[in-house]
Each structure stands twice: as C-alpha cells, then as structure tokens.
C-alpha cells in the first residue's frame, strides 16, 4: 500500500521535473538511469570488469553536471590498510597520473584516513572524498577530483548525491551477495568434508589394513603368483586412503581461510609440530587471486611436499616461497636441504608424486621436482593466472 503511494508520488515529481526542464534547460542531460546502474553493479559477475563501465556512464553525466572549467573526475578507491593495498577504478579516458595514485594510496591507506567530508588539495587538485561504506577490512571511497576551481560543498553535495547513492547501493549489494555466496560455499564444503570423513575415509581405512594383511600373507612361497596383485591392491588402497585424508584436510584448511597464503601458513604450523625441521616461509603474494579450486589444488601440492620433507628427506631446513613472478605468473618453490629424491627408487607411496602432477595438470599449473645441486629437493610449481581465466 505504502509502496504504491510512494511510487506514484515519485512519478508525479519526475513528470513535474520534465516540464520544468523543458522550459529552463538549454542542453539535454544524457539520460542516466541510476537504478539500472546500481542493479548492474549489484548483479556483476566480475566487479572489476563491470565497475569501470558504470563509472564511464557516470563520468559522462559528471562532465555535464559540472562546468568545463572545474573539470571534475570520479574515482572509486578501495582501501585495505591491513594489507596496505589500494585499488582505484575510474571511467576516464586517460588514467590518473601515477604520482597522484601514489599520493592517494598514501593518504587513504598508509596514513590515517582523512575526515570524510573535508575537501583537500593533493598534487594541485582539489579532492572531495566521501566514505561510502566498509566491508571487512576494506573501506570504499568515492572521490571527486577537480582540476580547476572546486564548487562549494553545498553545491557539490547537491550535484553528486544521487551518484554516490547509486554507487553505495550497487557496491554494497554486490559485497553483500559475495559474502552470502562465500558462506554458502563454505557450508557446502564443510558438509562434503564431513561426509567424506565419516563414510569413505572410514571404509578406506579398513580396506587399507586388510589389504596390507593380505599382502603380508601372500609373501609365503605357495602364494607367490598372487603377490603382484596383492602388492598393487595394498599400495593403491594406501594411496586412496592417503588422498582422501589430504582432501579432507585441505578442504578444511581452505575453508578456514579461503586463501592460499593462510592455508600454507596453517600447514607449516601443523608440520612444524611433527619434526625438528626449521621451516621458513617467504610469502610475497599480494592478495589471494586464485579460485577456490586452484587454491585447494595448490595447497594439496604444498602439503604433499611438506609431508614428504617430514617423512623422507632427513632435512634440517625447509623453505616455502610464494611469489608473483610477473603480474600473472604465480610461483611456489618448496626446497629442503635433505637427502634429495632418487627417481629410480620407486617406493609404494611415490604415487604421491604422481598425484601431485595430476593435480597440477588439473588447474593448468606446471610442476617440477628436482634435486638441488647443493643437496636436497626442490619443488617448483607455477601457475599462469591469465591462461586460466
């Protein structure tokens, strides 16, 4: 009831606006449907692709709203002080100067965030910031940059209110959806991990013991013809059991953190307690840029390498390095100073290596396992992020 009332009131108002405009405006305003833009943002598949388009539409409007002498530009700034990262989006034809971006990064992320409503001067530009909202550690700002004389605060507010509301509504809704999606994904994964743990892992555990026993019994001379089969049975069952356990663990780990770095940190902590090996982590990844599927497979490979180090390497030191070689090439190196691997000595659980390779293939990563010239083993895992998108 109330809705209908409100709607008709707005209709009347806009109709009234139309007539007034026809009389007073010389120039046609570009038609911008704010609701449509907010909806576009809220339902974006990939926000960093959608946002620039929306900002472009808004920038056209801004070009008309402000006189050319003021030359106003809109930038959306995402600031994350906890990781010291700033992301900026704009709908301009020419990207803002690197120096300006550096100054803004310092102002909004590194330093104490400015008072939301105060205009400020940065690199000869007047900037009017407005804090849209906060999400987790992220603060989202809208910035109006003026190359010429800036309008009065009152005028600015009047001209930009609906633009800010649109961005606020759209982005807020997008983040809201994202976190709902994440929660749903987490609970789904938790359910599968629990299922696996209670059903398959139990059965495999039982099969593993029985197949080992069978294999042992077949060592007697009278069963020598059965030996190859029972040996295979035992090692495959062992492998399946091991894989299932790791699958449960890695899905739990990615669930806790939903990012590779945190998963690796947790895994190192876990393995540290099982040995006297000194683990060193050198994590230079700026932020998580992997899909849950990629994270989980990468983490599985890291964990497999770490468990090999603890179980077989006789190492005293191990190092895990996570880095972005280029903006799209992620590399992980895991090395130890142990005895190295002998590719010819095929152990029953050298399945482990095979599975690592398979998992790397599944996400399009390349995996190399080599002996280090100075002794020990080195695992190199690299993933081209662009090729996978």
């Amino acid at each position, binding site marked *: 009831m109330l809705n209908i009332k409100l709607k008709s009131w707005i209709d009347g108002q806009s109709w009234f606006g139309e007539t007034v405009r026809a009389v007073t405006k010389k120039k046609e305003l570009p038609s911008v449907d704010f609701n449509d833009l907010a909806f576009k943002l809220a339902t974006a598949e990939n926000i960093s692709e959608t946002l620039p388009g929306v900002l472009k539409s808004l920038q056209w409007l801004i070009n008309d709203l402000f006189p050319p002498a003021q030359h106003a530009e809109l930038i959306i700034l995402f600031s994350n*002080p*906890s*990781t*010291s990262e700033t992301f900026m989006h704009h709908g301009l034809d020419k990207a803002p100067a690197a120096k300006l971006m550096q100054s803004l990064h310092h102002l909004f992320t*590194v*330093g*104490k965030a400015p008072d939301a409503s105060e205009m400020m001067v940065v690199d000869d530009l007047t900037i009017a910031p407005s804090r849209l909202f906060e999400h987790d550690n992220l603060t989202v700002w809208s910035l109006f940059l003026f190359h010429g004389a800036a309008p009065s605060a009152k005028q600015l507010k009047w001209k930009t209110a609906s633009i800010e509301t649109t961005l606020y509504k759209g982005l807020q809704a997008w983040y809201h959806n994202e976190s709902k999606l994440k929660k749903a994904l987490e609970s789904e994964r938790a359910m599968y991990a629990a299922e696996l743990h209670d059903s398959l892992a139990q059965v495999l555990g039982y099969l593993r013991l029985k197949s080992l026993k069978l294999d042992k019994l077949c060592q007697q001379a009278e069963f020598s013809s059965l030996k190859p089969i029972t040996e295979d049975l035992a090692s495959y069952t062992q492998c399946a059991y091991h894989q299932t356990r790791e699958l449960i663990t890695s899905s739990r780990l990615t669930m806790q953190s939903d990012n590779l770095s945190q998963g690796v940190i947790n895994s190192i902590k876990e393995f*540290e*307690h*099982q*040995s*006297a*090996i*000194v*683990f*060193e982590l*050198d*994590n*230079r*990844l*700026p932020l998580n840029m992997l899909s849950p599927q990629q994270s989980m497979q990468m983490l599985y490979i890291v964990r497999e390498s770490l468990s090999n180090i603890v179980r077989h390497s006789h190492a*005293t030191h191990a190092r895990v390095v996570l880095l972005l070689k280029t903006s799209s090439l992620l590399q992980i190196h895991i090395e130890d100073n142990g005895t190295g691997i002998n590719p010819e000595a095929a152990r029953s659980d050298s399945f482990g290596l095979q599975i690592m390779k398979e998992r790397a293939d599944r996400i399009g990563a390349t995996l190399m396992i080599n002996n280090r010239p100075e002794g020990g083993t080195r695992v190199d895992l690299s993933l081209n992020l662009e090729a996978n998108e």
Partner: protein
Amino acid sequence: MTLLKWPRRHSQAQEEESQLLHLFNSLNEVVLLFDKQQQVQFVNQYWEVITGIPVEQTLGRMFSDFLHPEEIPSWSQLLNKITPSQHENIWFRLISASGELRWCEMRIQSVNKDQPYPLSATLCDITPQVRNEEVRHASHRSLQSLVDRLPAMLYRSRNNASWSMEYVSEGCELLTGYSAESMLNQSQVSLGSIIHQDDATRVWENVQQALETFSPFDIHYRLTRADGTEVSVQDKGRGLYSKSGMVLGVEGILLLTNKR
C-alpha cells in the same frame, strides 16, 4: 684578501663533508636518512654490503620498495606513530638484489626535536641471529611436542609429601584427568593429594630410600583420577642433586599399568 680566503673556507667545508662521508662509509652498520615522502635521502656504503643494491639505485626511492611485502603494514604503522620526542625499534625482512631475504633491526628517530621529518635511522643485519634463533626454536618445539604427545606423564617435582610439580608434561591429563597447568606448583591439585591413602607412605619411603643411595626408583601405586576412578601407575625416576649431594628435586615418568 677576502677573495683568497673564501675558496679556502669552502674547501675546508668540503673536506669536512668528505671526512664525514668517509666515517659513515667505514661503519659496519647502515645509516639512513628519510624525507617526508619516506624517500631515502642518504645511505652509506654498508647498505650495498647487506642488500647488494648500489647506493645510487637506492637514493630517492621509497624505503618500502625494499621491504618484504608482509612487512609493509607494520612499517606504515611505525611511521604513523613516530613522534619527534621518541625513537622506535623495528625488525623486518629486506629483499636483497638476488631476491634473498635479510633480517634487519632498525632504530629510527626524528632528526629534529620539533618536527617529525626528516627521519634518521641505523640498520643492522641480524639474519644469522634470527636463523640461530629459528633453529633453537625448532628443536625446542619438536622436543616439546614429542614430550607432550607421549602417553605418559613426565615430571620434575620437589621432594615433599605433596610432590609439588615444577614441570609436568601434557600426558598428565591422560593419566590423572587433571590438566598439566592445574598441577604446576600445586596451583589446584597436587600429585600427593591424589595418591591412594594406603600407598602414600610407601611411596614416600621408597623414594627417600632411593635418594639416599643415589639410585633410581621404580614403584607402583594407585591414583584417584579427577572423575573419581582409580588407576594403577608405574613411576620410574631418580633424584636431582647438587654437586654436594643435596637433593634438589625428583624427576621421572609415570605410566599407566594394567589394574591389579
């Protein structure tokens, strides 16, 4: 006269400056100066020794360019809280020219007492110390986990009737139902108080006899667990003596045995 004098004074100032530079470059420690934009305004030669990055390539760059990405938040935090009246101390990792990490300790302060910038700093390489510490930490951590996972209770106690504990391993909970912390220094419960009444005197006498003769003991007795049930344990241990033979304490291991 003045014309002759002026160049001489100039060269003296130059000489002083080069002497100062010589002094800075002789130090086995990095000396740095930062401006308001946190750019490096001065750095001595030792910087290149630590990081492999030439001085010329360092001047004018943001110091955070050389830091490991994980260190940048704490570095920014430090710069935010620095005031002219105090100096700060920070540990961080630098990425050297070859991509290796160097652990460093920096002391940083304002040059002037009335304004925060510029900042002066000294930096020393503590990588060997950190590596040693990591090794020590790893061996301690590994021993600790080993001891705490054993299905037994390792202890060091004082030689008194309540056997008050100076150290108890985590296995305490498995044997007695009480947590290791609750038994430390009798904070909540003592081993003496949970030994079966009929066994307490025998335990005390057997241990004292072993201590007298500097020999190990191996005794069996009953404990009342936290839930009220009774368990039998085996206690193997020995005394802890000073050089003069004085008893300082008792160390040993408690294991669950089958009920008699």
